[in-house]
């Protein structure tokens, strides 16, 4: 589901008027590039979010890649267009029928207790709802608090219709987001595959891929991005990010843009001087080599591929 009010049901509380005192323009975010170079990781992702937690605010924080709902300074819900919402996660594998979901939304949406209704009406076990919702919350928060986010806004008094499930502290969400960035960086330091259209490289899959990675690879078609694949599979976006970084590290998947760039010298060789492409490839290879603290087999393979492509 998209962020924002439910169509037809439970429009957001008018609540107290929007407080313009909260500076809407400045929410300097951490830029990952800085954090990569073994500099100590800054403890605060969003000063505005920390302030809202301190004042135990209730409402919705909107950044350009998603929203965080707070109740008394704790995060109760999060949504981001980069990752599937609870509805897709719950219905795509049959944990819940689509009818069951919409019935719950129309029955309990206005009272903002859809989560509770799903459990009380026997449609979903309490544990299943908590696991799925909590996973989705941290997942959407990861993208919402992404490094490239611009200005943030906070609207006081707005509540989400899913209702209370399992609130978590702002500190926990921020720590987890930073930990996830570091995890991705350890797997493969190049973030290009996180958002671009993905293609398979010419490299044959010479190892038995873990089934979850194989499922992701099967969806790579030159058009889909990580977020498209997550939606198709009904899988949290971060999970797909992890698998795609692993596939990129193994040299099996890359971005479409990069393939075009690398093939350019072969197809349209003479008119443009080949020199820039060659140096681009070399630079990429060198960059890849420098980017990882502990070169592993996958990295060496990528390096070899880049050199062979010269």
């Amino acid at each position, binding site marked *: 589901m998209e962020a924002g009010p439910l169509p037809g049901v439970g429009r957001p509380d008018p609540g107290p008027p929007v407080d313009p005192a909260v500076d809407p323009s400045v929410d300097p975010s951490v830029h990952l590039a800085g954090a990569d170079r073994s500099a100590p990781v800054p403890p605060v992702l969003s000063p505005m979010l920390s302030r809202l937690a301190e004042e135990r605010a209730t409402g919705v924080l909107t950044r350009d890649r998603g929203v965080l709902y707070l109740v008394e300074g704790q995060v109760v819900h999060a949504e981001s267009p980069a990752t599937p919402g609870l509805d897709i996660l719950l219905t*795509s*594998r049959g944990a819940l029928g689509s009818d069951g979901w919409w019935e719950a939304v129309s029955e309990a949406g206005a009272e903002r207790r859809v989560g509770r209704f799903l459990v009380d009406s*026997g449609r979903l076990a*309490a*544990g299943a709802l*908590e*696991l*799925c919702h909590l996973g989705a919350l941290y997942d959407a928060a990861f993208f919402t608090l992404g490094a490239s986010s611009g200005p943030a806004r906070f609207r006081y008094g707005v509540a989400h219709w899913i209702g209370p499930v399992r609130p978590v502290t702002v500190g926990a969400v921020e720590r987890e987001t930073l*930990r996830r960035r570091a995890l991705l960086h350890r797997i493969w330091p190049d973030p290009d595959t996180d958002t671009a259209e993905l293609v398979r490289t010419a490299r044959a899959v010479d190892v038995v891929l873990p089934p*979850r990675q194989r499922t992701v690879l099967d969806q790579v078609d030159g058009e889909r991005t990580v977020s498209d694949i997550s939606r198709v599979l009904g899988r949290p976006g971060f999970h797909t990010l992890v698998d795609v970084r692993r596939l990129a590290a193994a040299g099996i998947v890359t971005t479409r843009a990069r393939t075009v760039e690398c093939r350019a010298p072969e197809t349209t060789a003479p008119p443009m001087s080949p020199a820039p492409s060659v140096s681009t490839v070399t630079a990429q290879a060198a960059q890849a080599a420098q980017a990882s603290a502990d070169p592993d087999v996958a990295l060496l393979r990528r390096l070899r591929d880049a050199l062979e492509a010269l």
Partner: protein
Amino acid sequence: MPGIDECLLEAMRLPGARGASVVDWTSGLALGTVGDSPNGDHEATAAEAAELARLAAEHKAFAPEEGADWSGGQPPVEDLIISNRDSYHVLRFVRTTFDSSVFLHLWLGRSDGNLALARIRLGEMAERLVVG
């Protein structure tokens, strides 16, 4: 119907239980924790346990003989058991009807813990957690 907290509290009632958690093995996130953790930091323990769980889930060597059946995207491995001089760890994969990668982690004292009982109970808890 039990939620995460009820499930963890039930695990803590097992003889010798020192700590328990629910962890996502793809991200290493602790979705819920109770009691102590071996290195005094539940989040770090979860990340380490997640690495181990992922390897066990993904490597064919640990799949049953008839092949790795990942129906519903869930691993064919049921649980992992680790023992050391003073404690046991039992990691139990939770099979959900939505896409997930979750396990229960129970840490037991070796002198007062009952590994066989804990393993059976943890399996039951993992099922009740998501089926109700």
